[in-house]
């Protein structure tokens, strides 16, 4: 990998990817231990996409995400303690224990939410961009979705809309080649997301999503164009989901060789090689990885020790007028 990046930028990218990997690994282990309830979708192997994109964003920029949203949230600056507590369903989670992994959100850093419905975040990002434009904000909206989402109507409707109203939104198609338990190319006709975007008037760039420097460079350019008012853009990032669809899915139907091959293209390891070439000592990189693991282990320990939410919280945040009151006895 050739890079024009300065070393500090590379270290920032490396550090964020390591934090995402450590968070996902800690969450996965905690799920296996039985202390994280519900379904868990982790993004191990895909850290380069969230990182390369979000390090080009300002706090006031907004993102929407999908069911695999931990990495997007971390890269956007979400507090990991609040995230981990949310995954554990504990008091002090960003969503007060009401959302969990699939609905992770931290509005304080512009993370407008993961989504349990495939492509659910696309119209929301488009609308956020419309509102930001209306308010003459310099902020933009960024929308993460998977390759599976491009076969739903909101993709077509959302891109057409964004182009029609020339909205400040950057679409990120995180293409790991799978839609849950099915290879996406077996359920997708035509030349794919780039051609679809172009046909809808949204110019796009396709990059190796496991090359975080390439993602960073492309995202920097696209974010600048979107921010300059040139209209929507799309980034197609090809990547690989190392783990199964959910924490309980072994993805046994995949060719094990393809998984092994993908591991040789691990975005973190690849950047480590570049950093070594640029004179960073292996010990320093190990220290970064170790610090990330310690941070996430501490978040797990905190979440485990955190209290459960009070029953009354279940009755809050429903609506202002007409909400049912908690009587002290549920139901």
């Amino acid at each position, binding site marked *: 990998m050739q890079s024009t990046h300065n070393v500090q930028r590379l270290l920032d990218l490396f550090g964020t990817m390591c934090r995402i990997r450590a968070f996902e690994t800690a969450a996965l282990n905690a799920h296996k231990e039985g202390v994280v309830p519900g379904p868990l979708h982790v993004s191990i192997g895909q850290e380069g996409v969230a990182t390369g994109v979000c390090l080009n964003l300002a706090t006031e920029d907004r993102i929407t995400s999908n069911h695999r949203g931990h990495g997007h949230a971390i890269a956007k600056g979400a507090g990991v303690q609040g995230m981990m507590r949310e995954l554990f369903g504990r008091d002090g989670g960003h969503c007060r224990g009401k959302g969990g992994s699939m609905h992770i959100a931290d509005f304080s850093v512009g993370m407008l939410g993961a989504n349990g419905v495939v492509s659910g975040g696309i119209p929301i990002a488009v609308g956020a961009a419309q509102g930001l434009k209306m308010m003459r904000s310099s902020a933009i909206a960024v929308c993460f979705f998977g390759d599976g989402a491009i076969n739903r109507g909101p993709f077509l409707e959302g891109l057409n809309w964004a182009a029609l109203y020339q909205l400040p939104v950057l679409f990120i198609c995180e293409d790991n080649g799978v839609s849950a338990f099915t290879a996406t190319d077996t359920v997708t006709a035509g030349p794919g997301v780039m051609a679809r975007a172009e046909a809808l008037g949204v110019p796009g760039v396709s990059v190796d999503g496991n090359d975080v420097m390439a993602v960073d460079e492309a995202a920097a350019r696209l974010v600048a164009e979107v921010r300059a008012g040139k209209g929507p853009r799309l980034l197609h990032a090809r990547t690989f989901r190392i783990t199964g669809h959910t924490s309980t899915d072994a993805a046994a139907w995949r060719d094990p060789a393809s998984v092994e091959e993908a591991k040789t293209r691990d975005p973190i390891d690849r950047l480590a090689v570049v950093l070594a070439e640029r004179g960073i000592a292996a010990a320093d990189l190990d220290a970064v990885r170790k610090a990330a693991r310690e941070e996430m282990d501490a978040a797990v320990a905190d979440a485990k020790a955190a209290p459960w939410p009070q*029953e009354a919280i279940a009755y809050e945040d429903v609506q202002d007028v007409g909400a049912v009151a908690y009587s002290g006895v549920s139901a």
Partner: protein
Amino acid sequence: MSGQSVTLVEAVRLAALQEMRRDPTVWVLGEDVARGGLYGQYKDFLPEFGPERVVSTPISESVIMGAGLGAALVGTRPIIEMRIFDFVMCAMDELVNQIAKIRYMFGGQAKPSVVVRMPHGIWRNSAAQHSQMLEAWFVHLPGVIVVTPSTPADAAGLLVSAIRSDDPVLFFDPKNLFPLTGEVAQVIEPIPFGKARTVREGRDLTLVSWSAILPAVEQAAATLAAEGIAADVIDLRTLWPWDEAAVCASVEKTGRLLVVQEAVTAAGFGAEVVSTVIERLGPARVKAARRLGAPRIPVPFSPPLEDAVKVTPAKIVAAAKAVMAG
């Protein structure tokens, strides 16, 4: 006919398998169905029936639903798999404006012979977008049959009826009960729509329920029996048509009615049951009638919060005692 003890998910698998073997116009479409479906409800269908009849689709709910309708109009019998109930929201036009209306609007020319399978209910801390129980919405929708089984045998027999039905059938698999075991016949006979199942007989109180909450109702009935309160327990099995006669006959006997639903109480199907009974029997014959369901809040993620809003045997017992006192 010798039976076999199987899980509910295996029972519905066997029912669909039997019907696909019987009728070559039956086929299934939905995400991941070629891999056996999310729950294994179509396990091994692909090798037997091939990719034309076991169609793993794109994530395209509106077309999954609408294409199912179109294929029915030319004489096939599609099983439309929605994977998880909540995703039907992405196909509401195709279901509500098209499937439910097409026969009527076109003066009887169209035969929308589809089964829409929508595994529903609270399921292992899946939070607000994967736990909904909105079956009452569809009872409000003319043109469709609403099926809500709670046992392996009923799920199998009702699925057979659903597949053979010329009317569109909305089949709510109780996903939390997929592991429940029970007897299923080797040859699965169709169970008619609109016939309730008497789970247990008693003269003090009528308990009416359906779908995944039935085991909790049965548990509560056992507790009540131990305390000397004998409940008639009725599993409606289908919400449209529903067995008004069976429920009214029971309440005529007991004079007391409790409807237990896992869904939100407000404007749920329990309201329909209570008002129908009072209309048919007259208020004088009904000493007390109540509904027990969830509070009008989305299903929360955190285990203690989810537990707090769930209907439980203890809550059913308490509500039944209130009905006895009323």
